[in-house]
């Protein structure tokens, strides 16, 4: 079979597939999918290796250690990595590179990626979940907060998109 790295699934069929994965998670675990909670758990694991007393003294960090759900989210992220490796390799998209537009340097793009990631990670703590944990998981279960998040997310994205366009095109 010919592999075309620019060919993606039909978005609606991909959406159905994603929805079925999410629904299976609801029906088996009673939980949805998420990424930001697992990120926190990984960060806490690193901190605990360096400064365990500090983790114990900081309630949000100590909670991440004590809970069972954060560990589940880390296993889920492990699955995400495996799924991403298999899917990108078989589609011919596995390649060591930096995705960016022609008008920005590699260092600049990586700096923006890190800063944007930090802003997102911080804000996802405030919203108790990110695009997957809040918008997808909560949105499908008709949580008002998830729909507030969904709209605010798009507002924030459209608001800033013009100013960072040099990153991509």
């Amino acid at each position: 079979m010919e592999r075309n790295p620019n060919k993606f699934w039909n978005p609606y069929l991909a959406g159905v597939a994603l929805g079925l994965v999410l629904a299976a998670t609801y029906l088996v675990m009673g939980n949805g999918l998420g990424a930001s909670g697992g990120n926190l758990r990984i960060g806490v694991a690193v901190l605990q290796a360096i400064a365990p007393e500090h983790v114990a003294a900081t309630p949000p960090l100590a909670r991440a250690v004590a809970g069972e759900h954060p560990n589940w989210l880390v296993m889920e992220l492990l699955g995400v990595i495996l799924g991403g490796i298999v899917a990108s390799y078989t589609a011919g998209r596995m390649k060591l590179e930096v995705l960016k537009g022609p008008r920005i340097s590699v260092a600049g793009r990586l700096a923006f990626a890190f800063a944007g990631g930090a802003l997102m990670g911080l804000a996802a703590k405030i919203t108790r979940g990110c695009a997957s944990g809040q918008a997808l998981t909560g949105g499908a279960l008709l949580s008002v907060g998830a729909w507030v998040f969904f709209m605010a997310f798009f507002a924030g994205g459209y608001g800033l998109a013009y100013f960072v366009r040099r990153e991509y095109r």
Partner: protein
Amino acid sequence: MTFPLFPTHEWGLVFGVLSGFGFGFVLERAGFGRTQKLVGQFYGDDMTVFKVMFTAVVTAMLVVVVASGLGLADFKIIADHATSETLLVPFAIGGAAVGAGFVMSGYCPGTSWVAMASGKLDGLFTVLGSIVGAILWSEVEFRPGFATFHNMTNVGNFYLWELLHLPPRAGPAILAAAVVVMAAGCFVGAEKIERLLARNADPLAQATPGGRRGRFVVAGLGAASLVGVALLALPTGTAASVRAAEPVSQLELARRVFDAPWTVRVIDLRPAAACAEKRIPGAECVPEADLPKLALADAAPGRDLVLVGDGALAQPPAAAAAYPGRVLILAGGWKGWEAFALTPPEPPAPGAPLAEVDAYRVRAGIQSALTGMKAAPPPPTPTAAPSGGPKKGGGGCSG
């Protein structure tokens, strides 16, 4: 109720890897490992993010709605378990910040892992940034000032059907159908915008039109939403099959009240005075008129609800039928209980079959325990155990 399965911790972790695999695989194949496809959403020429996300939301919603309609699951139990509380102001401000971080980094926390897995260094840097950001906020969120903002305007678990004052059983199905209509409209709009802006599009992020397959998917979602609504009307729907009250015998209830009282919540519907005088151990005295005050529809479903009427109850009152867990009706009501548990049983005749003697012992024990009698009813005359094997089948005429 069959779902959620709630597996053991270990099996849950195994399932976590599996569901993560599906999540990551689909995100990659949808194009979410490529930053240009993701941010194309915000330049208007590639609406893949919106199409995939909204279709996924609608699909998952409909699966849970239909499963609830068939009585296999309960929408609200899953929703209470899987969603967070709603905090209006933090979500509005934080949501905008997540959106801003998304266009800056080019990923969201989930897709950055997929990008990293396919070798994209910008994905790796987004992952590292997200971890640092999550730690940073955890360091301050509980401190004075920050905590006020972090926890303000918390309205608890709050759902759109509650916002719109729809009934809790039918609300999710009705809203799901409305969301499908809204989604179909938005998809038509998104395809149109993509066509208008196609000439600006990044060569690495060409929009994928839905085409015939897309229309087929939307039609299928529409059909599923109609099934979800239709199931509300069927007698086999949630309202009947989950809430159909089962009878519970006096003996069974007595066993549970003594051996595992935490598994039942006994509600005595007789007038308060009668109930105050004598009742089943642990029973709450709630005359039928006061039943709505218990808000059983929103109560935790962990315990089985046992309803005790004066005589035999045919149907649970509506306020009790809304209880999300099992609803049981005590067979024979209070009168039956009184005759069974509070009246000394007749000792079996000498030579009665063993089963009858056993039943007498149990009833005598219950009666003496409940009435606080020092002297239990007289012990039965011992019967010689029949030698060899169980007694012949077809009881009832053995005397």
